[in-house]
């Protein structure tokens, strides 16, 4: 088990390294070569003079060769900003003040804040949305998937198939706009946009219910499909027949014997999807005006706020890798055969 963990962990670190390199190349050489925009010019503000750009360039360490910059970026990501950079970027301020300005992911161009603090301000919104959506989609999809599998080719099953197909082809933002128009505007059941912090649980849920539901229905389509096909597979297994032969009740057969064994791929997918969503449910957040990580990424990219965009990509890559590792551990615990691979 320990060897298995170490191997997965090393694999994860390698993926994060690949992502940092990709992001660094994208926002360093590619950006410069492609649009002649240097980060220093962006950071220096409106219509900077060449001297100002040079000064900012030195301030941010952008006058060094790329490989030095990349090495430093990595070091800062792991160890936090160095004392030398702190003194350079925020001279004469306390450590706490400087943390507000400069973090592991660097410092935002658009706002006088560290990317870290921006991420942590916006992350709770994404976390809340993911939480509400995940509960809804599991509650919707698993019962439907099981019932469909118990009665294949019934009317219920056929109606489900149609909904799954539509759910898979309906762009989530268009679905969101339709929901906003009909349910929020015409019927007035939900607010049109915005987010309320968890300190007011009622309002929190009220504002997240519609976006959560829209997101959930899209995922539910996929989960119904997986649950149904997994259940169909396990229901035809020998051990299910054996259980029936021993006189187990139908509910017991379905829940204890079939569903338990059908769960593994669902757990896997659930973990990976959670990771993906926590990195920013971009389309839903933008459509519903929820100021989460995805929304922040779009805002930052529109303003050419390079460190913030890069920071969010990295952050979400780390979350996804972590989700992958957790899923591997959970799978290995649930199914001991996996470790032998």
């Amino acid at each position, binding site marked *: 088990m320990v060897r298995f963990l170490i191997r997965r962990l090393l694999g994860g670190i390698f993926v994060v390294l690949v*992502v940092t390199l990709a992001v660094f190349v*994208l*926002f360093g050489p590619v950006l410069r070569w492609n649009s002649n925009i240097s980060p220093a010019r962006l950071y220096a503000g409106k219509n900077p003079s060449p001297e100002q750009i040079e000064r900012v360039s030195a301030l941010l360490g952008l006058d060094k060769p790329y490989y030095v910059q990349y090495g430093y970026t990595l070091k800062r990501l792991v160890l936090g900003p160095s004392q030398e950079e702190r003194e350079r970027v925020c001279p004469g301020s306390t450590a706490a003040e400087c943390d507000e300005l400069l973090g592991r992911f660097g410092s935002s161009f658009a706002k006088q804040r560290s990317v870290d603090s921006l991420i942590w301000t916006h992350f709770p919104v994404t976390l809340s949305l993911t939480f509400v959506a995940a509960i809804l989609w599991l509650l919707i999809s698993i019962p439907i998937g099981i019932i469909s599998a118990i009665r294949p080719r019934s009317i219920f099953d056929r109606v489900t198939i149609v909904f799954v197909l539509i759910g898979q082809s309906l*762009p989530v933002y*268009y679905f969101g706009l339709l929901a906003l128009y009909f349910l929020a505007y015409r019927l007035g059941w939900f607010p049109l946009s915005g987010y309320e912090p968890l300190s007011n649980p009622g309002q929190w849920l009220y504002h997240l219910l519609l976006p959560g539901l829209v997101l959930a229905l899209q995922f539910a389509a996929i989960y119904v499909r997986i649950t149904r096909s997994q259940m169909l597979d396990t229901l035809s297994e020998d051990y299910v027949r054996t259980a029936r032969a021993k006189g187990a009740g139908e509910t017991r057969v379905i829940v204890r014997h079939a569903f338990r064994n059908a769960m593994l791929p669902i757990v896997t997918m659930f973990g990976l999807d959670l990771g993906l969503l926590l990195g920013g449910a*971009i389309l839903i957040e933008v459509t519903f005006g929820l100021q989460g990580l995805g929304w922040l990424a779009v805002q930052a990219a529109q303003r050419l706020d390079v460190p913030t965009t890069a920071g969010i990509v990295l952050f*979400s890559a780390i979350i996804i890798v972590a989700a992958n590792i957790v899923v591997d551990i959970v799978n290995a615990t649930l199914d001991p055969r996996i470790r032998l691979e």
Partner: protein
Amino acid sequence: MSTVEQFEDMKTEGMVLARTPRQLAFARLRRDYVALASLVFIILLVLFALAGPLFESWTGHPVNKSNSTGVDDYTLLPVGPLHGCANGLASVGERACFVLGASNNLGYDMLVQLSFGARTSLIIGIVATFLTMVVALLLGVIAGYVGGWTDTVIARLMDIVAAFPFLLFAIAASVAFGASLWFVILIIALFSWFYPGRIFRGEVLSLRNREFVTAARMLGASNSRIVFRHLMPQLIGPLTVYASLSVAGAIAAEAALSYLGFGLPLEIPSWGRMISDAVPGGLYINAPFLMVFPGTLLVFTVLAFNLLGDGLRDALDPRGGTIL
């Protein structure tokens, strides 16, 4: 007389006629009304996209051109469907009728924009799918056939790409590379090849130790002959299925990027951007048709390619599951 009719004839005479797998597949596809309807929709969509210049000259509203008559003087909203059509559908010029209304608050003609948007979607869908399939075939076949650490490296690469957040990375990359048609096509292909690639790899893995491959090798066939003459033909089935599904995916991905305002330059019409044009200031609240026309077309297009791919899968491999 087609082979199927021939077959029907022979059947009435009480004879049995052997049919090739391809004939069987076509026969099955002919009975799949959902897949046929999807195919008809796609053909109509292609015609609709080709008719762009016709719509331009017929309405007198060039693509990407603002028309003062397309915006209501009092409400400042884009005009609705059939605006100015009282004097007949084909009244030309500035006074011409807006059959489907205007598409944004600059007074672009919805019909014309939709038609040129269809071109964009189809071009991106087809070119990105072509690239996706080339890469997927190449890497999938190499991984499956060569095996060993080559396989390990390629399989890991597939895992990494699969775990990447596509939209987030595409947005970041579009900041660095700037907006262009090729950028959108390449970024979509870059993030889509892994799925068909895994399928092709799996197919080749299961085929390479089969008797017919061993037999070919025993007869002295070279690796390239085995791959191209014996393995590749077996992949045509999955290739057509995943090509169709991949077109749907690429069209949806482009629309999502354009909805967020990244990827395509403004002069290329896009359904995704048309939907996003309805958002600022809650325009869609007062004029829902702004999002409903491009949105519905997008849904049906993605659905049609998905259903066609599904129908193809059923036709080519009746043992395999359907979409469910």
